């Protein structure tokens, strides 16, 4: 029996790959619709901060994620942007990741049109900038010193969406959704220094790293991973990819737990019985 158990412990990893593929495949093809019962404090705070920004204010979205983290972060960006438009906020989008530009393009093809928002009047997209810290520092004194033209080459100063916006004093909230450490820069170089509230959206794997910033209030709220996206979607009452992805996430997480438990039980049996 011990030999059989040991064999199971050294099972060919391709069987595990196959099992995971099957487990992920089923809910993606046919969602089970498992309920998302809780809303975490950090997601609730992120929502509250966006919610209390007065209508007509200019909110800066820094969307810094590429296709590798798209499944977790794109639903967060869609939900936050939808809610900003629903609240009639003016939106500026910047990015410091070259790979984000295509995803931002896909985002603005869809979301503003749903809310009947006009490019240049209700929202504006700025081109990719290579050096995030330099751009962030520059915006503190003069936004147009770094972003003089939008992505379509129009003079940024003359756009109605930028009316009254000169530097961080005119921006009541920054939303940074990122799969990188750019959120750290927003907190350290902008949030702390210029007293601008910063709300983040990150992957589940990097979420625990932001605990210190949340505890000190340097980061006002945090949406973490696909679950965070699902929670934010339920708060804004707009179910999207985050909510539908929860099923696959559920089953994959449970599979990981079962595998870890199984391997440890086998180890105990082999060692002591």
């Amino acid at each position: 029996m011990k030999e059989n158990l040991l064999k199971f412990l050294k099972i060919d990893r391709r069987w595990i790959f196959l099992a995971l593929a099957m487990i992920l495949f089923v809910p993606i093809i046919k969602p089970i619709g498992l309920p998302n019962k809780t809303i975490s404090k950090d997601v609730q705070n992120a929502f509250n901060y966006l919610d209390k920004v007065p209508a007509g204010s200019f909110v800066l979205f820094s969307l810094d994620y590429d296709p590798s983290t798209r499944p977790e972060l794109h639903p967060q960006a869609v939900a936050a942007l939808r809610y900003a438009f629903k609240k009639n906020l003016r939106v500026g989008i910047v990015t410091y990741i070259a790979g984000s530009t295509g995803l931002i393009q896909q985002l603005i093809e869809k979301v503003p049109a749903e809310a009947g928002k006009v490019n240049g009047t209700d929202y504006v997209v700025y081109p990719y900038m290579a050096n995030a810290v330099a751009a962030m520092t520059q915006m503190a004194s003069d936004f147009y010193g770094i972003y003089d033209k939008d992505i379509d080459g129009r003079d940024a100063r003359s756009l109605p969406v930028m009316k009254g916006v000169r530097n961080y004093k005119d921006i009541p909230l920054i939303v940074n959704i990122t799969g990188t450490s750019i959120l750290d820069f927003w907190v350290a170089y902008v949030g702390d220094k210029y007293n601008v509230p910063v709300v983040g959206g990150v992957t589940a794997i990097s979420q625990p790293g932001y605990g210190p910033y949340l505890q000190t209030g340097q980061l006002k709220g945090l949406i973490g991973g696909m679950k965070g996206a699902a929670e934010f979607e339920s708060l804004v009452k707009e179910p999207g990819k985050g909510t539908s992805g929860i099923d696959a996430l559920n089953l994959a997480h449970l599979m990981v737990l079962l595998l870890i438990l199984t391997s440890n039980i086998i180890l105990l049996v082999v060692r002591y019985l």
Partner: protein
Amino acid sequence: MKIIKNYLPLAMVMVMGLLMLGSYYVPHKLSVDYVEQMNKWENIVFAFAFLLGLLSLFVSHYGKIRRRQDGWGYSIFVFVGFLIMVVPSLISGGKQMVDGQVTGLGWSFRYVYNALSATMFAVLAFYIVSTAYRSFRIKSAQAFVLFVAAFILILGKVPLGQMAWESVLGWTGYGIDRVIEWIMSVPAVAGKRGIMIGIAIGAIVTSLKIIFGIERQYMGKD
């Protein structure tokens, strides 16, 4: 010669470093203008660094192909990938969408870069699951603590796990969200804060060593 090769770079680094450090705390217009100017210079240097990195990448992979080194076939894809993104980008002037139509760059991004990048990351999930099964073994007290924390966090991350916790341990009055919140805000934050403070002190010390000319590796060997 020694002045140009040694003393001048050291003096430049010291002056620029101290000015940048000081400008963070001085809200005067001159200081702000100086930072803005430096930011513009930094962006220009960044662009050159990109170019240098690209050239270095090409030279390295071209060398591999020329020498028929192990795995040289993969190096071809560096050039293929580069061309697939750069040629459409030049043709479409860097725009991914013109008059509602997806340009060549937009197509390359959506159907090449997007797919490849997402696939690379998605494959990780399979390796993580397989590694969790093979490596997450409780062989010591520390491993047991790690196991318990990981188990609770994974369980609490998904609604099905929350439901399972409630049905088994609901009678205790401690919801899994409260337990997770404690783990995340006490032991996890304590560890993370320690790491962050350590990194920050290290960065400050290294910066000061560079500014005051104690650390000179950036100047090369001779």
